[in-house]
């Protein structure tokens, strides 16, 4: 009885096993197991040649394929000195994989170059040794030596010439020569009278983020706070990041410039003048600039019929920081009606912009006619007195 039961079970198993085989045989006759030679043992990876950086740990995915189920031993030959290699699978270090013959086995090769590695091409070979055969996979690793962090500052025109009130502009190229991203702080070392600012895309900046190898064009603007004497002013700009620094020497060359000032000694720009009478005013032509003002000409513009003389009207030179008094003799027209008039005085120099002041002159008329009026009243009173004397009765 027991023998019969076993037989039945065998038949059932045989039927279960044979039925799909037969169906497969009908679909893919070429894939029949017994007719074709078995798949040879191969080990391969998609990217067998890689470029890696210094200090980089590389993980190369390997696939092992074999026709027959077997255990494949893995090893690496020709490993460069001090390089650490290991095979990783299922979160562990492995030294062999099992290939079931149908699917590929995956394993990662982990390569850990030492810190002392220098750039160059390194080759090694992964050897897979099966039960009957072995396969080799040559790997090429090109270690690229990473560029050290460094910054350069460069400009085409390191010296700019200008007047004291000019804004000195330097176009500076800031470049990150290294491979790493850097955050560069910008500082300037300039004489205290200069205000230096860094502009990037018309925005004022003090630090610039730079990707590896990136360069940016900065504008360095230096502006003097007040009028400064002529001369060359060195401006050093420093670019600093955590690992690298660069500096660039620039020069702002200030040329002297005369700047005229024109006023009265007390700054008062109004006055009185009697119609027909000469009144003198003192004007002050000064030079606030940094170079002497040459050929200063003072002129006046007054209403018609007015007589204005200026003494002196031409000054050969007004030294920087000095001033010269000019006397203006103003004689309003005799027939000018009283009231306020504008008289303009202009001072011109060769290199400086002209300065004009408007003086408000109040013309007063003579009080002579007032006395005549009083005389008229006196005559009238005299007439009364005469009448009293002549016609007084009793």
């Amino acid at each position, binding site marked *: 009885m027991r023998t019969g039961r076993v037989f039945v079970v065998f038949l059932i198993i045989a039927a279960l096993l044979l039925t799909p085989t037969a169906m497969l045989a009908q679909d893919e006759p070429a894939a029949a197991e017994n007719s074709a030679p078995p798949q040879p043992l191969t080990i391969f990876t998609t990217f067998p040649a890689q470029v890696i950086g210094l200090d980089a740990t590389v993980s190369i995915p390997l696939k092992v394929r074999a026709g027959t189920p077997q255990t494949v031993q893995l090893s690496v030959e020709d490993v460069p000195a001090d390089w650490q290699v290991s095979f990783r699978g299922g979160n562990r270090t492995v030294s062999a994989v099992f290939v079931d013959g149908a699917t590929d086995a995956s394993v990662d090769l982990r390569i850990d170059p030492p810190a002392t590695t220098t750039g160059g091409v390194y080759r090694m070979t992964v050897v897979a040794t099966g039960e009957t055969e072995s396969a080799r996979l040559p790997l090429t690793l090109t270690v690229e030596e990473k560029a050290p962090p460094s910054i350069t500052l460069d400009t085409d025109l390191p010296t700019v010439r200008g007047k004291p009130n000019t804004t000195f502009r330097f176009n500076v190229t800031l470049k990150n020569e290294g491979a790493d991203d850097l955050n560069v702080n910008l500082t300037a070392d300039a004489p205290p009278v200069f205000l230096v600012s860094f502009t990037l895309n018309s925005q004022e900046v003090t630090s610039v983020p730079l990707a590896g190898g990136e360069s940016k064009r900065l504008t360095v603007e230096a502006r003097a706070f007040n009028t400064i004497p002529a001369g060359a002013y060195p401006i050093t700009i420093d670019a600093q990041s955590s690992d690298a620094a660069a500096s660039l020497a620039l020069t702002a060359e200030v040329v002297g410039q005369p700047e005229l000032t024109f006023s009265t000694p007390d700054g008062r720009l109004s006055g009185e003048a009697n119609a027909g009478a000469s009144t003198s005013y003192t004007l002050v032509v000064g030079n606030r600039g940094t170079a002497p003002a040459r050929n200063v000409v003072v002129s006046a513009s*007054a*209403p*018609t*019929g*007015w007589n204005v003389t200026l003494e002196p009207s031409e000054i050969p030179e007004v030294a920087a920081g000095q001033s010269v008094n000019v006397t203006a003799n103003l004689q309003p027209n005799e*027939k*000018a*009606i*009283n*009231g*306020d*008039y*504008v*008289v303009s005085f202009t001072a011109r120099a060769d290199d400086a912009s002209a300065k004009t002041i408007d003086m*408000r002159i*109040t013309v*007063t*008329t003579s*009080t002579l*006619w*007032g006395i005549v*009026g*009083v005389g*008229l*009243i006196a*005559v*009238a*009173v005299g*007439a*009364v007195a005469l*009448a*009293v004397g002549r*016609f*007084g*009765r*009793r």
Partner: protein
Amino acid sequence: MAQAIELSAEQAHTPPQARGRHGSPWTGLWAVVGKEMADHLSSVRMQILEALILLTAIGVVYAVMQSVRQTVSQDQFVFLRLFTTARDPFPAFVGFLSFLAPLIAIAISFDAINGEFSRRTMSRVLAQPIYRDALLLGKFLAGLFTLSLVLTAIWLLIMGMGILGLGLPPSGEEVARSLIFLVATIFYGGIWLALGMVFSIIFRQPATAALAGLAVWLFFTIFWSMITSLAARTISPVTYGLPEEILRQLQVEQAISRISPNTLYVEATLGILNPAVRSFGILLPSQLEGAIVGAPLPFMQSVLLMWPQLTGLIAATILLFALAYVLFQRQEIRA
């Protein structure tokens, strides 16, 4: 009159001179002034005129205040605006005064002398130790003081209402300018006062004197401007239409129009109350070259500008009084 009697006692000591004068001709002057002023100020006639002016002043100031408050622009002389701003239906206060002041003056003086005759009191007054010089001058001064009193009261009223309404005190220059304006107004009234007195001496009937005074006033107010342009065209005709001819004609016209006390008064008030006025005459563009138009003149310059007009008004008042004096002295008064 007690003073007068005392003085007569003094006269008794001095020996009488044949056909000569005894003492000052102005003896008893202030007694006359006091009596006359008392008469004026208590008369119904004056009270009516004062009420008229008071109402005018209140109305004008109220109207001006409305317009000043609406004006947001800055004004250095806002108090002077009280006198010069016209607002419909009210003319400016200056305009009112230019015909009210003559009216008061004529009303005060038209029966000054002939009223004494018609009441038959002249002989009685002169029977007192008062010369007729003193009588005439006293009557004139009393009229002038009454006029001044009324006008000063109105001036104070307007300034006070201005301070209340505007809420700020007038500046010193504003006060000075308006005081000069007050003086000009008093003497403008003084001319008509003296004129009324002249007519009251000439005509024995008070009604005739009043009509004559009003006729002269109307003549200068209404007809003088017509006569002026007519006379200017006759004296200085424009033959070829040259600018010089037109200018000369305008100057002649202005000179003739200044004979009228109305013109003198209007120019004087314009010059003193409007500081921006620089000249009354015709201004050529060349004279305005470089001038700051609208800038106020300094006070003394404004006074200087209207000084001829003011002295003209004062002198005309005195001369008219002199005329009245001569006429009165030569008159037969024993009627």
